[in-house]
């Protein structure tokens, strides 16, 4: 090993001195030197049988002279001549160097130091070259052996070298890469493991709660309580999303010209299903605005999404906002909710029109909705338009009768709209604020935007402990929630913001409502599936803008507004912002005269009551205990089933062995303790008298199976059945005795 390493290190030194040497004197040269060296060594060993050490050493290298001339003209191996001579010199060095062991011992350290410095400074010892890796491995083992000898053995007797040789061989077989260790797969595996453990726990809890018909897995948005009290962030995965569409948009930053990446988001609505009204309103708006495909592509696109229900039990059909097609296992889903709750694994395939509500092009269209000619659009025209713009079949979404009903009575039913303009419970303060915000504005959209921006200034807080309980499903409740945010606490969460904006809009004369579902922002890295946790549950307001339909807004400060999420797309044809009419600085102009926030109490942070924390802890502990018990039960049953299955598949001999072991176990259990000498007779004499003879026969069969020679009878099916029968009889007999004793006692 030392010679091999020495050759490699010296060769590398030679490479550095004269670079072109590597072509001729590579690993093959080292191998040739090693083979020649070993050859000389074998000769020396042979010669030693009949001559002294020095002479045999000298004579053993004579063949090198012969070899030198013999291998002279081999073109394919031009290095052989040098190799044989170098090997001869090394052989002589090995034989005649004084204090050879010490030379090898300390020489290894020096060689290793040289090799390491060559590696670090000149990149020597390429990992692809196994010979060079082997040389390094040999050096490393030599040094380890030396350290062991010097430090631990203190110069007495080294550990057998065979150990280090084996280590060197094993190390050489493993790949030594040029790149350092990449820990990402390990980290990812760790994350996956943790995720799987969490999923397993959640699965257990989910199925267990299903047995007790609990409401633990209602949707996250229903768990908001819509009451305005404190809520905590639950991290159950409620939905799994899969999409082939890109989850981010790329655009060029107008200021520095850099290519930027922005994540897309999706709003999922519960209980609505296919949103016929929204799609008809959208198409109608775009048709009347004369929007071309090039323009609409700048702020909208048809997208598909697959949803799978996670730890959820609800009858709601959860679909993206603007859904035009919704199917489950290929069948169309016609209603917004089902009579029976859907469970984990329920899937929906949705096609929806994803709209960039922050796009200046869309905003401009909406702002000017009331200025477009209000012409009647026939069903066919709208269908053709929908096909042209979004390649959707409107006739599959809505029938002509439904369309006529939708458009015939001049829009939405007056009674329904009356609900959305109801301002019951609003205080004069709230009314004043609404007027202050919107009186100077004529455009409905602008009014919505200024209210949205005003509310986004308020801080977000989930802990609204002593804020009181209000019912958001009633207008009075929404008014109360608005008061809490705007005038009392000065903070809240989505429920407060949505209620506040809805009431302020209504007070400004704009019909408004709240929607509930999930708001999910895709991550930057594309994944196979995306998990929507319960904490993504959200509620947001929508305003009905004449001519445009229901437009959603995002007043909750903790969430990105539409403007923050805009795709920054430009229409393909030259249609600049000025042409469309939405000027730069539109928003800044709106906010110029926005009033200051009026709040009495500014965000008092409330501490979650200790009792709730303890209750949660108890819940967790009980859940863990239950799941452990459940797993224990599964293991117990599983072991029994596996044992049964193995017994059924075993050969007759194996079955007999198993039966004998079980008989012994039973006898032992029901006898006084005794020392097992390994004799079955000890068990036989402790068996119940009634079965003793039969058990003796079974033991006889066992001995026959174990110890009889190949010529003897094998265990037959009859024997095996007999053993099983006796075992069962014994067990029954002990059971009866135990029951008798219990009754007796």
């Amino acid at each position, binding site marked *: 090993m030392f010679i091999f390493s020495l050759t490699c290190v010296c060769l590398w030194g030679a490479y550095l001195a004269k670079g072109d040497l590597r072509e001729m004197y590579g690993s093959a040269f080292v191998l040739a030197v090693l083979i020649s060296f070993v050859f000389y060594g074998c000769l020396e060993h042979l010669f030693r049988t009949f001559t002294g050490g020095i002479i045999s050493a000298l004579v053993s290298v004579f063949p090198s002279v012969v070899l030198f001339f013999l291998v002279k003209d081999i073109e394919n191996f031009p290095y052989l001549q040098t190799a044989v001579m170098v090997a001869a010199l090394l052989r002589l060095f090995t034989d005649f160097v004084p204090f050879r062991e010490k030379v090898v011992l300390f020489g290894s350290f020096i060689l290793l130091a040289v090799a390491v410095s060559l*590696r670090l400074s000149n*990149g020597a010892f390429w990992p692809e070259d196994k010979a060079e890796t082997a040389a390094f491995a040999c050096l*490393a083992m030599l040094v380890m052996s030396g350290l062991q000898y010097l430090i631990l053995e203190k110069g007495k007797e080294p*550990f057998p070298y*065979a150990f280090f040789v084996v280590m060197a061989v*094993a190390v050489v077989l493993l790949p030594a890469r040029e790149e*350092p260790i990449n820990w990402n797969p390990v980290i990812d595996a760790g994350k996956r493991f943790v995720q799987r453990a969490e999923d397993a726990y959640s699965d257990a809890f989910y199925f267990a709660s299903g047995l007790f018909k609990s409401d633990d897995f209602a949707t996250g948005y229903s768990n908001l309580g819509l009451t305005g009290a404190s809520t905590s962030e639950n991290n159950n995965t409620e939905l799994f999303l899969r999409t082939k569409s890109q989850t981010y948009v790329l655009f060029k930053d107008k200021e520095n010209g850099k290519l930027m990446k922005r994540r897309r988001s999706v709003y999922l609505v519960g209980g609505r299903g296919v949103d016929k009204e929204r799609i008809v309103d959208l198409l109608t708006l775009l048709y009347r605005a004369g929007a071309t495909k090039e323009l609409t592509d700048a702020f909208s696109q048809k997208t598909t999404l697959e949803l799978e229900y996670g730890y959820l039990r609800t009858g709601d059909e959860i679909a993206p906002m603007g859904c035009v097609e919704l199917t489950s296992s290929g069948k169309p889903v016609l209603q917004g909710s089902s009579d029976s709750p859907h469970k984990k694994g329920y899937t929906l395939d949705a096609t929806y029109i994803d709209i960039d509500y922050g796009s200046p092009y869309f905003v401009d269209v909406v702002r000017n909705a009331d200025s477009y000619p209000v012409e009647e659009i026939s069903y066919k025209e709208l269908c053709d338009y929908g096909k042209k713009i979004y390649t959707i079949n409107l006739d599959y979404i809505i029938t002509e009768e439904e369309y006529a009903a939708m458009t015939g009575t001049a829009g939405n039913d007056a009674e329904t709209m009356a609900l959305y303009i109801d301002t019951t419970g609003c205080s004069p303060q709230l009314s004043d604020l609404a007027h202050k915000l919107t009186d100077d504005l004529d455009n409905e959209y602008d009014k919505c935007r200024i209210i949205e921006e005003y509310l986004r200034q308020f801080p977000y807080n989930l802990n609204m402990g002593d804020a009181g309980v209000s019912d958001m499903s009633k207008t009075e409740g929404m008014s109360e929630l608005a008061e809490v945010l705007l005038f009392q606490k000065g903070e809240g969460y989505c429920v407060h913001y949505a209620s506040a904006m809805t009431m302020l809009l209504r007070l400004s004369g704009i019909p408004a409502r709240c929607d509930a579902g999930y708001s999910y922002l895709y991550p930057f890295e594309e994944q196979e599936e995306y998990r929507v946790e319960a904490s993504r549950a959200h509620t947001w307001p929508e305003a009905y803008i004449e001519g445009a339909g229901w437009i959603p807004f995002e007043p909750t400060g903790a969430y990105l507004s539409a403007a923050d999420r805009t795709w920054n797309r430009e229409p393909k044809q030259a249609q600049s912002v000025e042409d469309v009419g939405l000027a730069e600085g539109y928003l800044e102009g709106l906010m110029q005269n926005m009033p200051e926030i009026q709040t009495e109490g500014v965000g008092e942070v409330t501490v979650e009551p200790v009792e709730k924390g303890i209750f949660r802890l108890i819940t967790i502990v009980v859940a863990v205990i239950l799941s452990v018990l459940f797993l224990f039960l599964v293991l117990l049953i599983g072991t029994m089933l596996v044992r049964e299955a193995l017994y059924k598949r075993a050969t007759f001999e194996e079955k007999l062995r198993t039966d004998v072991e079980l008989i012994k176990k039973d006898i032992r259990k029901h006898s006084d303790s*005794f020392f097992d000498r390994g004799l079955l007779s000890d068990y036989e004499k402790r068996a119940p008298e009634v079965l003793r003879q039969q058990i003796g026969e079974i033991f006889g069969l066992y001995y026959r199976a174990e110890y009889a020679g190949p010529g003897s009878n094998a265990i037959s099916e009859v024997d095996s059945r007999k053993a099983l029968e006796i075992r069962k009889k014994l067990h029954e007999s002990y059971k009866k005795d135990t029951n008798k004793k219990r009754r007796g006692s």
Partner: protein
Amino acid sequence: MSISFSKKGLLLYLLILLGSLVLASFYGGPVSFVLLYALLLMIPISLIYMIINIFSVSLYQEIEVHKLAKGDTHNYRVLVENSGILPIHNMTFGLYRDRSEFVSLRDGDEVSLDVRQKKEISSGISCKYAGAYNIGVEDLFFTDPFRIMRLKYPVPYSFRAIVSPRITDIADDFLDIENMVNSSGLKSARLFEETPGSDMRAYRSGDPLSAINWKVSARLSELMVRVPDKLEKRTVTLILLAVNVPEREQDTEFLKKRDYFLEFVVSAAWHFGQQRIPVKLIYPAGTVRESVVDSYDTFLEFYNIVADGIFYSTDSDYDKMKDIADSKGDNWDDMDIRLLIREDKEPGDDYCTVID
């Protein structure tokens, strides 16, 4: 087989391994990877090496005599052979130090064996306790090159010594206190004492002169001798209530107690034997056995088996012995004096008590 780790060695190893991992996380190539692989493989390859050594090593222990005497030094020989393909380095012996002493062999003595090499190690050995137990080499220890871990391998077949107790007078004090000789008039259970009787017969050649009844002989003008009567006999019974401890739990404390027990029993038997008083011994020897010691030969018979002859094969035998020990005169002869010798006496009890 068990593995133990040296805390210091392990800590150092883990630190170096961590360092090599860090090095390999930043630098690729053979420098870092060879070091990392070498450190990772060191423990498993060492373990495999040691396990191969275990399978290759053979150990044979021998003592010059079959039965040993307590306290005497005997010649002990251990032969170790490496029949494998890998050398054995610095294997150490774990000896049964608690029960035997070695003259020239110590715990921790290292032995290295080359491939196919044998070594013989001789020493003197003396056993501290009477009884039957394993002596000599208990375990073999192997270590890795860097002494991070140590593998302990119990020798599968230890040398089982049968150590006879010394014959001492430790029981004399216990037995003299009872003053049994004076109060009981013990007689042989088997040998009938000849006392002068009333029946007469004519003298035969060989009759002792002391048997001649001179008065009757003078009257009948013929030598007449008395025919001896057989006297009633009293008996002594020793009940040896040994402890019931399974072999795998027989530790040093057990050996000490057993040693004292055996010595006491032998001393008691010898005590009565010297006074020509026969004694019945009831003891467990696989089953509950009775022996009578009433002569030197019978004493020797008992002495030869006592070292390894006291054991229980089932718990019911122990219960039987306890019943015998606890019986209050049921089915016992009034003329019998029963002494209970408990191996495991309770605090406050005597080692040897008379059962009423």
